[in-house]
């Protein structure tokens, strides 16, 4: 991305003004104003900021409401507590282990539970948290049971025993700064972009070559690392560890901080933590039931300002318009001539209904094949089977001699197959450029390159002027165009299009036909599902007609209209 410095006529604050002012105020408060008690509260705020930054990764970016985050915090806390107070180990040994323990736990439990739908995932992770709490309370030999373990040593950094007060606050906030910087760069980079797409549209993410399971597991495990680090630091601050660190209030606080501060944002986590940890100080009369205030703040935020405080600040001080990158053609992918996709004997049943029955087809490089048939004849299922969204019951899908039948969508996508969907789905919160660049995340080295290549794909379809518009604002025809650009950006050897002309005007159809011809001329093999014969027949070099999952016709487009079986299928008569 280019950083063009322009002198605007109005006063614009530099990019980092908000964050800079925040850091300066916080530092000034800590150095000049805060009492020892105030510093202690500030230290706790740092601990929660670190935990919430981790939560932003799994919940904000990844979209998975993990209620095990408090448990990871507690596991980190107990690791430090047990090793420090019972074995007398120092920070240099306990801290890495306090990160490692929740990390390993997250990998272990994440593999099964991350496959679950959102509410299942949330409640399954809550179950995990309850099991960990039960274990801690009921293993007094190891954890001290309900009373916990006293006598945890303080932080020992390179031989320096960090005293309480300003030094400890500085150390904790140092970890916040380091952890925040790491999370921020990850969120802005390829990984964060990919994770956001997995959150918004896991189906599309898979077909764009992104390994959804691995991205989610990575986010979950990384969030556990942050939680463990925060838990360890909290025990060094308290000098005791008790089941309190595993109880629901920790989880609730982290959730409230992330939502109130602003989902998915590091600045939101820090702002939310500083604010919410100090709130009980202002509501002293509630004593230990300060969580009522958290509950109310959480409810008010989610109802009134779902973007959180940082979202509100963004609305007050809108970020400057970004500058378009320079379009760049991605490195050419050699597509060999001849058959690029061979499908043999494909079969799929849904509960006794044969949706696809012994379908075979061959796609040659640089050709357009039409796939027609009445509604429910199995056309979309064929595309879903080839792109890996459904597993075939039988049959082979050969790309460059390799059988991809039953492989994951991302593996199939990486083998050179791209697709579009009948119901276009683009991430609502993203700009067109970001949406198309998602197709390049798996290939390119960075976001900048991905966006340059995305702009190239948009230019090829005459849609570069849409680049900075939000996807949510686009009319249906342009959404189809953007989705096609996204598939094209993958430079596929095989492109599967599911009713690309649906809802387009005649002029738009003619333009689309031109684009499809150009794509084929560059070597890509196209398989086009379409109802509009006037659009498809002049375009296709070869046509397949399906009826009730079986191939009814397989030949040149000219013969379709005169084929008795096809006519009968379309007119609803009994197939011969």
């Amino acid at each position, binding site marked *: 991305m280019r950083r063009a410095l322009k002198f605007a006529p109005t006063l614009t604050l530099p990019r980092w003004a908000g964050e800079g002012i925040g850091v300066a105020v916080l530092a000034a408060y800590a150095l000049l104003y805060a009492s020892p008690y105030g510093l202690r509260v500030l230290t706790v705020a740092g601990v929660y900021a670190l935990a919430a930054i981790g939560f932003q990764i799994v919940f904000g970016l990844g*979209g998975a*409401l993990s209620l095990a985050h408090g448990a990871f915090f507690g596991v980190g806390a107990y690791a430090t507590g047990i090793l420090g107070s019972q074995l007398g180990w120092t920070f240099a040994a306990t801290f890495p282990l306090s990160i490692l323990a929740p990390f390993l736990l997250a990998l272990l*439990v994440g593999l*099964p*539970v991350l*496959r*679950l*739908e*959102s*509410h*299942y*995932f*949330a*409640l*399954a992770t*809550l*179950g*995990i948290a*309850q*099991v960990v*709490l*039960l*274990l801690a*309370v*009921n293993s007094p030999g190891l954890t001290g049971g309900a009373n916990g373990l006293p006598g945890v040593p303080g932080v020992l950094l390179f031989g320096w025993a960090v005293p309480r007060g300003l030094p400890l606050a500085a150390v904790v906030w140092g970890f916040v700064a380091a952890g925040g910087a790491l999370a921020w760069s990850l969120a802005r980079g390829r990984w964060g972009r990919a994770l956001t797409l997995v959150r918004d549209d*896991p*189906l599309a993410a*898979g077909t764009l070559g992104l390994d959804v399971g691995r991205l989610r597991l990575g986010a979950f495990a990384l969030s556990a690392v942050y939680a463990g680090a925060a838990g360890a630091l909290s025990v060094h601050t308290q000098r005791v560890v008790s089941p309190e660190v595993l*109880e*629901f209030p920790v989880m*609730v606080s982290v*959730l*409230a901080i992330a*939502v109130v501060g602003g989902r998915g944002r590091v600045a939101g986590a820090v702002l939310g933590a500083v604010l919410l940890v100090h709130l009980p100080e202002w509501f002293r009369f*509630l004593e*230990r*039931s*300060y*969580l*009522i205030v*958290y*509950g*109310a703040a*959480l*409810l008010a935020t*989610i*109802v009134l300002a*779902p973007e959180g405080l940082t979202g509100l600040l963004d609305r007050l001080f809108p970020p400057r318009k970004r500058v378009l990158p320079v379009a760049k053609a991605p490195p050419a992918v050699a597509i060999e001539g001849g058959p690029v996709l061979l499908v043999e004997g494909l079969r799929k049943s849904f509960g006794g209904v044969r949706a696809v029955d012994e379908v075979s087809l061959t796609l040659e490089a640089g050709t357009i094949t039409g796939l027609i048939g009445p509604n429910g004849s199995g056309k979309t299922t064929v595309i879903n089977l080839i792109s890996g*969204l459904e597993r075939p019951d039988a049959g082979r899908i050969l790309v460059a001699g390799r059988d991809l039948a039953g492989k994951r969508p991302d593996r199939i996508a990486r083998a050179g197959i791209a697709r579009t969907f009948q119901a276009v789905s683009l991430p609502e919160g993203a700009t067109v450029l970001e949406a198309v660049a998602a197709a390049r995340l798996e290939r390119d080295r960075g976001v900048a390159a991905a966006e340059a290549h995305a702009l190239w794909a948009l230019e090829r379809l005459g849609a570069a002027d849409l680049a900075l518009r939000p996807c949510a604002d686009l009319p249906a025809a342009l959404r189809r165009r953007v989705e096609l650009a996204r598939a094209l950006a993958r430079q596929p050897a095989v492109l599967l299009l599911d009713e690309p002309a649906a809802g387009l005007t005649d002029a738009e159809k003619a333009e689309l036909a031109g684009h499809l011809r150009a794509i084929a001329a560059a070597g890509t093999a196209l398989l086009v599902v379409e109802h509009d014969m006037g659009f498809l027949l002049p375009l296709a070099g070869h046509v397949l007609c399906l009826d009730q999952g079986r191939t009814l016709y397989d030949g040149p487009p000219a013969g379709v209209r005169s084929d008795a079986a096809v006519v009968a299928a379309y007119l609803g008569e009994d197939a011969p």
Partner: protein
Amino acid sequence: MGARRDHQTATDPPVTTLQLLINGLALGAAYALVALGFVLVLNATSAVNFAQGDLVMAGGLLAVALAPLIPLPGIALLPVVLVAMAALGLVLALAAYLPLRRSPPVAVFISTIAVGIILQNGASVLFGPEPRAAPPLLSGGTVDLGGLVVAEQSLAIIAVAGLLIAGQQWLFARTQLGRRLRATAQDPEMARACGVPVTAMILVTFALGTAYAGAAGLLLANRYFVTPTAGGDLILKAYIAVTIGGWGSVPGAVVGALLIALFEVGVSSVLSYPVALGLLYAALLVILLARPQGLFGEAARRRA
């Protein structure tokens, strides 16, 4: 977190398997009310009401608070608890569901977590953290069933919960209101097109689900006590019941709740309550892995 079972003491006579079974059925009947309320709201709104466990706790503490004012057996408190909790259900729907019905499902999940936090901590301000007991439904004595001595409370819980569940079945199957409620649960868009006041039906569903949670609180709060933090375990159990029974299945939720309670009572009697709870959660994870469609097979709903 959560209420602890009142453990068998050495002076009690030995408990037979049949007595355990009746205790388990009583506990299961109360859990069934919780799960039923949860699944009714789930079907009507596709929203997970995370506050359901805390609503049970609120109903229990409401009964505790009412007991000195109404010096009658606990059964007399039931109508008051049902009405007051139904009103709370309306407030819940108005504050935490209706403003978010167009938002992603996770928003309602979070808003009901927030309501749960407010209830839990409000309760601990009002009642303190110690466990409280509500009055027994009848006298609190025992009944001799042909040589088998059974706690009267257990039988009363089974009877009351059974009547409430039967009442819900009758309401949904036989009345015009029930038909509208079912239409709303099946397909809100279609129901609206057919002239069903969908928003009103959702409010009724929330009121009903919350009233049943409150009733469960009254039923549970005598033998098992109630603490402000009891909701966490209860929502998990309701959720496990619904998962076992098949997500969205009403009879499945009731059967699931009974199975959970029998498991809990059985394992607690041999080992201990924490072990039973731990095994229950472990079993949940195994079920989610092996049969995400529930034990009785409902449409599987996984992430793609």
